[in-house]
């Protein structure tokens, strides 16, 4: 008998191993749920890891209040279907200060609503381990980050003093106040994620599929008009185009691509034939070289 494990089976097993290790070793883990396709895969793997029990940790969504409305609907539905507690945290101070991606720029906005919001939530609930869906192929600084990535009491990442990570033996030891960010999808690529969604029939937010949606063209990017907080600048007008999203975040910071790919195979086909990487659609990375590394040192996921 010779069953050869495929690459997806091997990746799946590795992710499940990582999740079980966290549940066995930490007192109070949480899963960061960003509602995107990577989160969808991560949640699916968690269900597999602990089946027939539900995953023994809550989902945490740091809501910037600028997410696509369809994402919020999908989030609530998935949490209910999986029988998981969903914690939604909003940086209220940021909201009170009127922080908006339109008026404060993407860098400050991301720092306050995402990074600060995340740190607030982790402190408030005293989570000692937090799963994130980041992959090493996404960005250069992620390529060097450990699967179990240590954070000090201020949530800071120090790329120069990472713990060596050997075999599948993960050092989970921390002192009070410190925490570990855990990336079970570290070794998956964008293509792996899509193939796995296809193979396992995993539900994803409909925004990934092409449909006619209202968009404006701004700085060479197509921004979807998801609510009336998007104020048109002079010369801009709302157009209806068949678009979809390769990555999902805050609607003012997430560019749509023109597409007619309305099924999973067609999405994968389009992805394989296009030559633009997915973070291109995120404004955050363009600010400066090494910007992701800086953000990660400050506590961003």
């Amino acid at each position, binding site marked *: *008998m010779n*069953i050869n494990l495929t690459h997806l089976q091997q990746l799946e097993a590795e992710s499940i191993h990582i999740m*079980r290790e966290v549940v*066995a070793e930490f007192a109070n883990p949480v899963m960061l749920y960003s509602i995107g396709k990577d989160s969808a895969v991560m949640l699916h793997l968690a269900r597999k890891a602990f089946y027939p029990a539900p995953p023994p940790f809550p989902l945490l969504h740091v809501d910037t209040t600028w997410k696509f409305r369809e994402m919020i609907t999908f989030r609530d539905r998935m949490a209910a279907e999986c029988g998981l507690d969903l914690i939604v945290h909003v940086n209220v101070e940021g909201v009170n200060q009127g922080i908006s991606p339109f008026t404060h720029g993407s860098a400050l906005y991301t720092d306050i609503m995402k990074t600060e919001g995340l740190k607030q939530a982790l402190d408030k609930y005293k989570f000692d381990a937090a799963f994130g869906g980041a992959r090493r192929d996404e960005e250069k600084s992620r390529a060097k980050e450990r699967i179990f990535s240590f954070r000090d009491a201020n949530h800071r990442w120090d790329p120069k003093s990472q713990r*060596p*990570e050997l*075999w*599948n033996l993960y050092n989970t030891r921390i002192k009070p106040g410190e925490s570990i960010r855990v990336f079970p999808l570290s070794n998956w690529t964008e293509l792996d994620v899509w193939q796995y969604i*296809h193979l396992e029939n995993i539900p994803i937010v409909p925004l990934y599929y092409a449909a006619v949606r209202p968009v404006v063209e701004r700085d060479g990017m197509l921004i979807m008009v998801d609510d009336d907080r998007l104020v048109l600048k002079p010369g801009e007008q709302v157009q209806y185009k068949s678009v979809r999203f390769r990555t999902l975040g805050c609607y003012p910071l997430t560019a749509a691509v023109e597409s007619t790919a309305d099924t999973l195979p067609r999405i994968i086909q389009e992805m394989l*034939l296009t030559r633009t990487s997915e973070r291109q659609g995120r404004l955050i990375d363009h600010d400066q070289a090494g910007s992701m590394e800086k953000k990660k040192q400050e506590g961003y996921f």
Partner: protein
Amino acid sequence: MSHQSDLIEKDILAYLKSQEEKSLLRFITCGSVDDGKSTLIGRLLWDSKMIFEDQLAALESDSKKVGTQGGAIDYALLLDGLQAEREQGITIDVAYRFFSTDRRKFIVADTPGHEQYTRNMVTGASTAQVAVILVDARKGLLTQTRRHSYLVSLVGIRHVVLAINKMDLVGYDAERFDTILRDYQQFAAPLGFASITAIPISALNGDNIIDASNNTPWYQGSTLMNYLETVQVEDDARNLPFRMPVQWVNRPHLDFRGFCGTIAAGTIRPGDELQVASSGRTSRVARIVTMNGDLQEAVAGQAVTLTLADEIDISRGDVLAPTDAPPRLSRHPEAHLVWMHDEALQPGKVYLVKTATSVTSGRVTRVQFAVDVNTLEQKQAPTLGLNEIGVVRLELDRPVAFDPYRQNRETGSFIIIDRFTNATVAAGMVIAVAPLESPEAELTELGAALPEAGGLLPRRFILSESSISGTGMGVADLTGERGAIEFEVSESFLDYLGKGNRVLFRLRDVGQLEPVARMAYEHHLNFEFGRDQDRVNVILYLDRQGSLAGNPELHGGGL
């Protein structure tokens, strides 16, 4: 073109189907600072179309700003992840890179070639199946080449590619290539690689990376990509005895108790008999549970949930194994240690030792010797400093199930963690230990204390846990003893039996039974014996209930 663009365009469903059978290969690249390692990986990513247009634009602008290729594309910049490193012009840590072709997905561990970074290389190699060792054709084998090869073999990689790079700078000289390969084969012979494949390349120009180069008509072998796509990494793990370290016990309700873990070796089917390594308790597999339905078989590498036919006590850290081939349970493993921290090893200090799912306190009792990674010579050393490698003896607070690392990377490896700083300070690999570990050595020591009386005194065997290091069933072979024998029993030996372990004594004749029986009598131990042709086999154990259950292993030639 590495992905079949035609099929993707014409029939995406057929393409997706074809991708479902793709395998995964993890490899490591090793080279010295200027061997062109980053350039090589950048080239592999580039040629397998894994670089996107926006990354290309960034690469072009970076190449002009900080590149080392006079403004031309500097592939190395694709890999230098951290800003600080980019400014220094070197990579300083382990980075993982991904690319895929239609046949395989690849995970590349990219590690630096600096002298002080043994730590990173061992880390990267720990999960790799193949090593690509770069050599500069102009320079030939360097100290670093030897060091990298030793580390690669230490960490258990069995397939090596000798990528002889910068062939363009030696005029694609076949003789130069042959000389380097011959030197390497000679040097690497004692390292025991299963295969060494030398390929003449130029990472910069792309010679023999994807396509066979016109510049090396004398070379008939595989290109690097072709090798990586087709190398058979024989899955030894599957043919080994079953091992599953229990990672987590799943108890959603009273009627379900599942033991979760990743299968470290072998295969398992419902009905198979299993034993808990620490307690010796046995049961049968009832179900292999997954969310996609129960499995009829599971193999090494799969993360599964097993339910058993009987309710026996099993918790995280236990290892499930077949009754006839359990792992060794030992408090005193001997191991290779790679020290990874600035603060040197302190023999005697208590550290945490983390193995597959179990964490126990322990100390290094002795550094047997350190290995000079450049010359492979053994030298006496009181301790191990950063990036030093040695063979040590550990003492753990409780027995832990181990296999020799050479047999099983999963159940033969461990990390050492500092209890106060929580830093990972060392990586360890358990060395094979003989079942009855050097009774002669123990006797030699004892012999000095005892007056020699012309061989008339009984030969005295000291029984301690470290001398019987088999797990579940240790073996003491006395068939070679012709004279009288006697035993000295240590506390650790009794502890060992108290944990459910048994020791098989192979006796030369029935006359040797008397000292074994006397020992059992004196220490309230139980034994059973069976005849095996002219010889006698005795199983010594401790049965707290005092019942003498029949032991089928005593009969016939199974012993």
